[in-house]
């Protein structure tokens, strides 16, 4: 049923001309996707998809639309070729999937070779009941280092392309920016933001036992500040969290993560070897995962802020400067 909704929303996106509609629809789409993922037992993924697809992406898209205008021109050329390409690709995949094991069948090769061992030994080896976190941060911790680097790359990319709002620009954001003239909002914000940050920390540390982890925490952390910015305006927000600090956070997280790996080297293990981080290997694992997740959280939060500041700090330009 969810899947049908998923299809419907996707098709709606194709049809919609007004980009605001598109953005909203894509937000809905992500939510449905997230729900579907929970149905499929992928709670962590669902959580991330929700916070990223429905949260961050939507904010970014809206921010962009604010700068670029929101009407899509009617396509000039006949979309025959694109249709063919799309169909062909899907066809190729259908051809492929006709041969794959039946959905949900535990005897499929995917459930045999590597995965079972994670489920069996992860807890003993790492002391982390959430196998996803264990695999993410330890078994395939190197992938996650890469992932964090990707975020980092995107961060500096956006900073390079848009710069992080220089003070000169703020005139554009209404008077002093934000909507702090609404008392109610201000009060609510004051009340909520601490909770947001608290929740972030919870997610951060609960990641070992339930869904959650550095990435989600970082996103929520950033969300808190973003919320603050929306209420009190960019100027105040950047007085609270100056761009340079954001930049440092962006770099710091990756640096921490990579450093954990180096320490592994120094203590005579391989790169990213957590066993050697403590006399007791399980503690070692725990420690490693903790710091690694911290690194992820910091970089993610930093990058999210950087991106948000970058977009918010941009003045709207109706005409080409060319």
């Amino acid at each position: 049923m969810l899947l049908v909704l998923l299809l419907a929303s996707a098709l709606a996106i194709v049809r919609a001309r007004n980009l605001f509609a598109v953005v909203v629809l894509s937000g809905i789409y992500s939510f449905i996707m997230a729900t579907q993922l929970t149905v499929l037992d992928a709670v962590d993924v669902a959580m991330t998809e929700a916070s990223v697809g429905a949260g961050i992406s939507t904010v970014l898209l809206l921010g962009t639309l604010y700068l670029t205008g929101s009407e899509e021109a009617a396509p000039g050329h006949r979309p025959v070729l694109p249709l063919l390409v799309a169909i062909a690709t899907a066809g190729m995949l259908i051809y492929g999937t006709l041969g794959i094991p039946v959905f949900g069948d535990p005897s499929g090769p995917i459930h045999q070779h590597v995965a079972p061992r994670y489920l069996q030994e992860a807890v003993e080896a790492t002391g982390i009941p959430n196998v996803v976190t264990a695999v993410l941060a330890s078994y395939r911790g190197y992938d996650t280092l890469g992932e964090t680097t990707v975020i980092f790359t995107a961060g500096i990319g956006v900073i390079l392309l848009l710069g992080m709002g220089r003070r000169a620009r703020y005139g554009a954001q209404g008077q002093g920016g934000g909507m702090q003239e609404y008392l109610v909002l201000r009060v609510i914000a004051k009340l909520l933001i601490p909770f947001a940050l608290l929740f972030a920390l919870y997610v951060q540390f609960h990641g070992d036992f339930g869904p959650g982890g550095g990435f989600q925490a970082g996103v929520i952390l950033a969300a808190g500040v973003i919320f603050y910015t929306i209420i009190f305006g960019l100027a105040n927000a950047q007085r609270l969290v100056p761009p340079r600090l954001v930049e440092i956070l962006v770099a710091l997280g990756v640096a921490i993560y990579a450093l954990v790996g180096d320490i592994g080297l120094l203590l005579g293990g391989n790169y990213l070897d957590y066993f050697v981080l403590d006399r007791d290997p399980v503690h070692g694992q725990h420690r490693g995962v903790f710091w690694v997740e911290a690194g992820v959280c910091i970089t993610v939060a930093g990058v999210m802020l950087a991106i948000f500041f970058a977009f918010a700090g941009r003045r709207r330009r109706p005409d080409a400067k060319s």
Partner: protein
Amino acid sequence: MTFIAQFNYWVAMALLAIGLYIVIARGNLVKKLVGLAIFQTSVYLLYISAGKIIGGTAPIIAQGLAVYSNPLPHVLILTAIVVGVATLALGLALVVRIKEAYGTIEEDDIHSQDEER
């Protein structure tokens, strides 16, 4: 195998096709990126569906639970999602700059402008 059994996969392909179609057919740079996102999410569905075991639960070890779904796809897709949003952010930043440089985010207008010079 029955059609229903593989329904998740069918949907994944449909989404894949839709996303790809938007990317190629649409001239609006923002919409292209949205299409790209759909294209990518279809892959998430593909992976996660493959990892599901009927009657299994989320791979968080606890008493009284025997069957867990495969955690590895979840890990991979977490990475994929992050990569996806990173790409999106970068893409949007480019779009903003393009808007500033060309005054439009419609592919055709941009091309026509480049022809002129």
